[in-house]
């Protein structure tokens, strides 16, 4: 295989993986932007989205509608968690918020185990999505699901871009992310904005969950854990709390992981995650505000 084609192939892989990281990281950053809270249960919205799709598919609903239902279920779960678990502890010390979100993670994952057991379930994918697209006589190969992932991510991002820059709620959200107190003083209904933020963030996680399960072919209750950690790294690389930063960080991380596996000696590949987390530590030490370097407001 020629080097150019190999690079093209790996670029496609990187974009597909980066899309998933970006989808999850954006939600993490949106919620952090407003509440200054790291929502560790965010990854479990992926699990909710994927399992809901599985259930909808099992009762005979066509895949696309089932997947849409999965995204909606992810959004609904996020909104419910905010209302039931996070709102009562809003304003509490950081460690309380942290423990609350960890508790929610345990509850959701154990609920998943209770209902679906911890053994992985096959994810029902239409056959055509698993078929490989081949170019240049099989030198570039990728499955349809990669294309679907990238296309749906672009659609989701376009929606988000429109929402944040063109709607009153989006403007309110940017204001609340910058200064929650001042946002309340101009009359923004902060509770409503937070619900909207959780709905969008969790819908994105639900979508990422469906796509992740589609790529892996399986669903299991702990499936959100690894992507959440990766999204966390991506969000920090880009600049935690910034939507654009999360997007950038997602693609940088996806690219980096593919780079490590595809271009470094194969002996290095098993250490991919170790390298990624070493990078995280480096960023926290030397560039804690991330690539986009959004300066933190100092409040007196």
């Amino acid at each position, binding site marked *: 295989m020629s080097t150019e084609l190999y690079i093209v192939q790996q670029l496609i892989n990187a974009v597909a993986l980066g899309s998933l990281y970006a989808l999850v990281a954006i939600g993490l950053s949106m919620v952090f932007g407003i509440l200054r809270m790291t929502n560790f249960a965010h990854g479990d919205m992926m699990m909710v989205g994927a399992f809901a799709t599985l259930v909808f598919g099992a009762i005979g609903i066509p895949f696309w509608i089932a997947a849409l239902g999965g995204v909606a279920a992810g959004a609904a779960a996020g909104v419910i968690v905010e209302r039931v678990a996070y709102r009562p502890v809003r304003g509490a010390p950081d460690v309380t918020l942290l423990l609350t979100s960890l508790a929610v993670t345990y509850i959701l994952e154990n609920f998943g185990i209770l209902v679906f057991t911890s053994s992985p379930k096959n994810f029902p994918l239409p056959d055509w999505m698993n078929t490989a697209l081949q170019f240049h006589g099989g030198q570039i190969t990728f499955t349809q699901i990669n294309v679907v992932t990238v296309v749906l991510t672009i659609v989701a991002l376009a929606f988000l871009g429109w929402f944040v820059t063109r709607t009153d709620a989006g403007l309110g959200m940017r204001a609340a992310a*910058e200064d929650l107190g001042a946002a309340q003083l101009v*009359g923004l209904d902060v509770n409503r904005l937070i619900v909207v933020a959780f709905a969008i963030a969790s819908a994105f996680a639900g979508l990422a969950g469906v796509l992740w399960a589609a790529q892996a072919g399986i669903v299991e209750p702990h499936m959100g854990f690894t992507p959440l950690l990766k999204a966390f790294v991506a969000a920090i690389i880009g600049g935690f709390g910034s939507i654009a930063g999360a997007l950038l960080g997602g693609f940088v991380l996806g690219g980096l992981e593919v780079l490590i596996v595809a271009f470094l000696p194969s002996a290095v590949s098993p250490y991919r995650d170790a390298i990624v987390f070493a990078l995280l530590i480096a960023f926290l030490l030397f560039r804690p505000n991330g690539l986009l370097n959004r300066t933190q407001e100092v409040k007196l």
Partner: protein
Amino acid sequence: MVRPDTAPNVTGRTSGGEPLLAIAGLEVNYGAIAAVKGIDVEVREGEVVALLGANGAGKSTTLRTISGLTRPRGGTVSFASERIDRLSPSRIVRLGIAHCPEGRRVFGSLSVAENLRLGATARSDRESIAADRARVCDLFPVLRERMGQTAGTLSGGEQQMLALARAMMARPRLLLLDEPSLGIAPLIVQSIFRTLAELKEMGIAILLVEQNMSLALDLADRAYVLTTGSVSMSGPAAELKADYEAVAAAYLGTRR
């Protein structure tokens, strides 16, 4: 709450009847610390009232409690004869109270135009919002030139003007102003206080927290002096100004 679409009338100033804002026996705690210990404060329609006192006397806490950011431990806050001390900040803005907070708190990453649009969050009448935007730009012409700039790029004085303009976009009956002169060049402070005098002429009631005592007493009709959470003096601004020494002493060592 129906307010006329034109500028508030100038004759709204009344001396009798119900005050516009009535604070009675207000107590506010921060954790175990009592920040405000049972104060009574009134602001009448169209009146400018100054809240004076040293740092930590409870002035900002009082304003934050009026606008709903902080919940009182005891006492009541009434606006236009309605209890507001259990309402959310967004409801309180809709009743006609705008709070221009200490440190300006403009949205630095958003444009001047977006800041002004956010100031009108509580309103839905697009045409009169546009008219009010023109009006606040007449009050602060520099904002018109800066409309597309992000607020973070403005000077401190310009940011204070934007914070005031943003509060005005809510078309308040009562404006809560926290330290409008803090950290701003003296010339700009003068210009801001001239604008405040114009707002007073328009009949907007103002509750003003200000460290600069003589500036505050020049503008205000009446004043209260807070000392460690309690009202230690109150009266017409002219009288307090005449008794400058006593007021300064009430500042507890931070006499200026």
